[in-house]
């Protein structure tokens, strides 16, 4: 798009054309007594170099890079190959607007189609959308989708999903007359089976779980899907660490009907919480209830392969008031990065990445729990995150570690009363043996 400045001459011509003397005259219909007198209470404008300096100073406050970090819980510090930045910043791709017109947007549409294909392969389901805002809104969309399909008002949501996602689900469902039931967890850190059996009934639309869950524990999806299907409900599985899908069996192969989650792990920087990348896939029979847009493959008049948006009429064009959700866009650029990331790693590379995460986490877990006063909180199997329990409150330990340049883990105190002495620790491929050993040594000193 061309940049069109507005000159004084243009202004004068435009005002003359519509027959008013000044811009002020355009606002004459607004009563005097409610009009702002004087200027807005804003600081003076800055020149470009001043503005740069201002934000550079702000940026220096971000001290994350100075620390050795073991934080995760929904935002993962994975290595991003340089090719992801290089390709995703090319002029053909970087645009503030996502053009969908097939005549001019074959590249964009092909990327979305490939992204959908990759999500289907990772999750083991038939069809995926062009992406959602993030994992939290994806979780909320999944329970609403299940409710549209099953038309039953009871929604079972595990208490061990990311607590911030749970808050978004509460917000989305608050005024819809739905019955949100929280499922407690057991000693293994998994959804408690007895409580689940008591909670699931004929009025249930969905069981929503996260795997690995917020405690890093892998859920038994087969058991959960059987419980759901026995009562004509759906199993929706939330994935906040998609790298785990290189190591674990795809949820769709274990009975999940909807899989949604956060794909920040796949080539997106931590970036102070966003923009992140939601994804969603489902069984083919539910395609008309899948929110968002879908790119499809077709042929043009000459029989050549091409891509178009498909099944999107419901959302945007002719039935907006009956749209399945309020998402009318996608995270095209973030999805592009995830696509480049996954296609760079390839099937074997992605498996190896997942293996590295799991192996390093197993090493860290064994070393950390060998320290007196440190125990593993939950007995369930883990991928690259786990909860440790300490002899005293985590808060004090965490502060002492920070003084040693280590962000040791996420406190569970706020969201889980009773787990004040617990922390969630995350390991990725970036944690070399030396780094893990440094953490172990520091923790020993702090606990001495």
């Amino acid at each position: 798009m061309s940049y069109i400045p507005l000159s004084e001459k243009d202004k004068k011509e435009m005002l003359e054309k519509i027959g008013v003397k000044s811009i002020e005259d355009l606002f004459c219909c607004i009563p005097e007594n409610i009009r702002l007198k004087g200027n807005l209470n804003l600081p003076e404008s800055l020149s470009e170099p001043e503005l740069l300096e201002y934000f550079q100073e702000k940026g220096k406050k971000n001290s994350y890079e100075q620390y050795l970090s073991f934080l995760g819980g929904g935002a993962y510090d994975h290595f991003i190959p340089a090719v992801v930045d290089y390709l995703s910043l090319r002029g053909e791709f970087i645009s503030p607007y996502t053009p969908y017109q097939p005549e001019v947007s074959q590249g964009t549409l092909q990327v979305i189609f490939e992204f959908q294909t990759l999500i289907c392969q990772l999750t083991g389901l038939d069809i995926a959308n062009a992406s959602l805002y993030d994992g939290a809104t994806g979780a909320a969309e999944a329970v609403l989708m299940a409710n549209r399909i099953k038309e039953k008002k009871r929604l079972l949501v595990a208490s061990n999903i990311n607590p911030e996602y749970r808050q978004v689900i509460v917000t989305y469902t608050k005024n819809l007359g739905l019955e949100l039931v929280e499922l407690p967890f057991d000693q293994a850190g998994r959804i408690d089976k007895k409580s689940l059996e008591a909670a699931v009934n004929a009025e249930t639309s969905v069981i929503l779980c996260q795997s690995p869950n917020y405690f890093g524990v892998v859920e038994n999806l087969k058991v959960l899907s059987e419980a759901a299907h026995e009562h004509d409900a759906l199993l929706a599985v939330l994935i906040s660490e998609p790298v785990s899908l290189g190591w674990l069996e795809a949820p769709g192969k274990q009975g999940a009907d909807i899989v949604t989650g956060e794909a920040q792990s796949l080539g997106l920087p931590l970036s102070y919480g966003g923009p992140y990348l939601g994804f969603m896939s489902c069984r083919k029979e539910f395609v008309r209830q899948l929110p968002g847009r879908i790119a499809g493959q077709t042929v043009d008049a000459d029989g050549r392969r091409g891509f178009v948006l498909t099944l999107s009429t419901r959302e945007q064009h002719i039935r907006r008031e009956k749209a399945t959700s309020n998402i009318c866009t996608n995270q095209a650029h973030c999805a592009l990065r995830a696509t480049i990331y996954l296609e760079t790693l390839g099937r074997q590379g992605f498996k190896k990445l997942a293996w590295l995460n799991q192996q390093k986490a197993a090493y860290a877990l064994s070393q950390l729990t060998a320290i007196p006063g440190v125990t593993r909180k939950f007995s369930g199997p883990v991928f690259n995150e786990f909860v440790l329990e300490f002899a005293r409150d985590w808060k004090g330990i965490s502060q002492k570690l920070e003084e040693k340049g280590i962000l040791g883990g996420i406190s569970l105190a706020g969201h889980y009363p009773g787990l004040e002495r617990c922390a969630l620790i995350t390991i990725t491929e970036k944690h070399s043996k030396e780094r893990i050993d440094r953490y172990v040594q520091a923790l020993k000193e702090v606990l001495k």
Partner: protein
Amino acid sequence: MYPNDFYYTKEHEWLKVEGDEAVVGITDFAQKQLGDIIYVDLPKPGKILEAHQTIGTVESVKSVSDVYSPISGEVIQVNSVLAQSPDTVNKDPHGEGWIVRLKVKDKSEITNLMKAADYEKYLEGLEH
């Protein structure tokens, strides 16, 4: 064209009364306007409908339209053929392409509907 023993709505549904039950579909005019039908979203049997409430949706290559219930009643059967062959609505809108069978709640509501001759007149009005 339009069967004399059917009743019609302004939204182009037809209703055929059979004792205490009634069959609902969309008219030949409606299917022509929609074009090639690729999907029919059917309700679940047991669903209670008020008159003018949405029964389901009909999706064609160029549009998506709601189908409204001409009268109040309970859905007792849906045309499961449409799940596999939605184009049956195009081929035989007044016969094999029926959409749902209702148990009629209040027969007096039928007097609000048009007869074939009135519907044909109504269509003529739309063409001008």
